[in-house]
């Protein structure tokens, strides 16, 4: 097994923070649960992360930080989120707040943002308003020109860290008539604002992330310098959408971390709980549920890791990769948790009783990931818009497609530096993962003698053809029609299947014996075909699951070493 170097930071984080099931570890489950009950903001935990230099990963290398690889950040977010999603979410908001500055900010703004992050300050991302939800172009908060300054008036609501942040990236209407060029993003240092011209709104009570701070801010002719505008005036809508392409991919790390803990707890429970004269794990349905949850996490992994790499390998396609990842991963992890709750029985419902009570916290905390930063529906609409281009097979495949696929999927391949100027709102090049399906069929045919994988891959290829035909037939449908969204969903599943195949082809010789054999692949491909996921009973998958639990390896295609000690005995 060769764990690629981009996972070393996450492994060292694991070593330094210890086993979260141990009450004495630095980010333990028990303190997470206690804070959750008190709805207490995790300031102390943030201070621990800051002293570990976690925020260096939020600052790009060219601005003096350590952010070089989104894949590395994804892995680290996962290691953090598996301990406590509340700590992770309320900390990583700063990265979202700073992203527009990294993408389009001035040198001064970049200096200000990186200095602030290094000093332990938080940056909020104030996008949404009380009455407009995801309808960004209907937003009302305005920034009106007044000489060499802008006067901000209006309210932002349901903003993470709105109150405790030092600075804020603010989405504001800068042209009365609005429209896609009628908004700007402003970077406002709250310490420099006249306190008489703004106030914070109370923390909103929530079902999950109860210790986090979700609040709002209200401005009344609050002055900021005109230089607070990030990039040219009028580019705020475009810039916000581009920043979201990045964060929609990275936030899958929150779901994946939660999914890992949920599965780890469920396996521990199933192995130790005695029922009917044996363990829960001895019950075939329970065992199969756990194994299928593991397979679902593997599929999510192939989607999320490749999307994080695609941000650097093919940023022009990020509109597609981010929409699929944000649609597919959080919703699948939510489903995994529902499935696992059956194994836990009544334990899944308890807020008392460590350690199983961590399960319900993970369920509550992670349920917001599929909603924030563009809901599942918004992602399907984004895909629906591009479906024709995404499913039309080019007359000739791009000559460098093979090399491009290798760059995205092979974890050994170095990635180019992130080039934010190449992000685009619509992918001119379609989607390499899906375009590469015919190529992938050939590769799998020569790589394996297994009929199962070949057949599963041929079915994926047939679905690609069918989907293209169905999209042609649906031409002219409105982007919000239910039929088009259903096609978009099929596309997302096709992309996920393609990611699994490519991931296997390019990494089968480095990621261990279980990953190298193709059984998991054919099973996952078949699982993706059916709406409810075909249940499999597979001894190899079950054995691997127990092995990983016992050794404390991540339930992932890249099973790096966790600090966790499973309770599973030989």
């Amino acid at each position, binding site marked *: 097994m060769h764990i690629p170097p981009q996972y070393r930071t996450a492994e060292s984080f694991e070593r330094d923070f210890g086993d979260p099931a141990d009450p004495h570890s630095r980010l333990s489950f028990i303190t997470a649960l206690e804070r959750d009950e008190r709805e207490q903001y995790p300031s102390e935990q943030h201070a621990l992360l800051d002293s570990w230099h976690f925020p260096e990963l939020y600052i790009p290398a060219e601005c003096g930080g350590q952010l070089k690889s989104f894949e590395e950040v994804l892995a680290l977010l996962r290691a953090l989120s598996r301990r406590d999603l509340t700590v992770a979410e309320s900390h990583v908001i700063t990265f979202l707040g700073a992203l527009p500055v990294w993408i389009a900010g001035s040198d001064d703004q970049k200096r200000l943002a990186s200095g602030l992050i290094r000093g332990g300050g938080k940056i909020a991302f104030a996008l949404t308003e009380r009455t407009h939800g995801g309808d960004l*172009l209907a937003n009302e908060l305005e920034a009106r020109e007044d000489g060499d300054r802008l006067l901000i008036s209006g309210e932002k609501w349901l903003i993470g860290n709105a109150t405790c942040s030092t600075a804020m990236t603010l989405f504001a209407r800068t042209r009365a008539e609005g*429209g*896609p*060029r009628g908004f700007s993003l402003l970077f406002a240092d709250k310490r420099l604002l006249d306190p008489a011209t703004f106030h914070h709104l109370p923390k909103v009570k929530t079902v999950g992330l109860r210790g986090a701070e979700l609040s709002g801010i209200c401005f009344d002719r609050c002055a900021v310098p005109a230089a607070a505008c990030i990039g040219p005036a009028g580019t705020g*809508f*475009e810039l916000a959408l581009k920043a979201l392409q990045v964060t929609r991919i990275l936030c899958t790390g929150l779901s994946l971390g939660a999914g890992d803990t949920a599965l780890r707890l469920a396996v521990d429970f199933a192995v130790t709980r005695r029922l009917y004269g044996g363990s829960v794990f001895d019950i075939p349905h329970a065992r199969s549920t756990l194994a299928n949850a593991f397979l679902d996490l593997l599929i999510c992994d192939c989607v999320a890791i490749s999307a994080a790499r695609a941000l650097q390998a093919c940023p022009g396609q990020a509109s597609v990769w981010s929409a699929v990842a944000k649609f597919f991963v959080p919703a699948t992890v939510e489903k995994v948790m529902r499935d696992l709750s059956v194994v836990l029985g009544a334990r899944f419902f308890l807020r008392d009783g460590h350690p199983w009570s961590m399960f319900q916290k993970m369920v509550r905390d992670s349920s917001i990931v599929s909603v924030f930063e563009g809901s599942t529906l918004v992602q399907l*609409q*984004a895909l629906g*818009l*591009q479906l024709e*281009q995404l499913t039309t097979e080019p007359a000739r495949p791009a000559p460098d497609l093979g090399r491009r696929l290798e760059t995205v999927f092979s974890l050994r391949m170095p990635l180019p530096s992130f080039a934010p100027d190449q992000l*685009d*709102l*619509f992918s*001119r090049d379609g989607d390499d993962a899906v375009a590469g399906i015919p190529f992938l069929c050939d590769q799998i045919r020569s790589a394996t003698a297994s009929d199962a994988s070949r057949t599963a891959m041929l079915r994926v290829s047939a679905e690609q053809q069918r989907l293209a035909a169905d999209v042609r037939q649906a031409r002219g449908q409105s*982007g919000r029609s239910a039929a088009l969204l259903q096609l978009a969903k099929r596309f997302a599943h096709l992309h996920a299947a393609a990611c699994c195949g490519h991931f296997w082809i390019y990494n089968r010789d480095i990621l261990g014996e279980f990953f190298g054999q193709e059984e998991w692949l054919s099973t996952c491909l078949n699982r993706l075909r059916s709406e409810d996921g075909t249940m499999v009973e597979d001894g190899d998958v079950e054995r691997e699951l127990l092995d990983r639990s016992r050794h404390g390896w991540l339930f992932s295609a890249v099973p790096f070493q966790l600090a966790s000690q499973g309770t599973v005995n030989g």
Partner: protein
Amino acid sequence: MDETAAAAAKIQRFLIAELAQRLEIDPNAIDPRQTFERYGMDSLNALRLAVELEARIDRKLPTTALWDYPSIDSLSKYLAGELNVREIRPEPV
């Protein structure tokens, strides 16, 4: 009329016909100075139209072109002027 203005006029006629066909309305009912949005094209569909146009002009067209040139009139002048486009190829059947 100079060459650029002639090209702009030709592109404008083409875009009017194209939009009328998509909306299934009479080309005479389309005012080229009105915004695309007025004719029911939201900001996201404007991205798609830009990509479709790009494939028919052999020039790189920003995906946000219709945000910056939000009417048939302004878009035609931009295509003919700054991008030196002389004609838009009909869509392949």
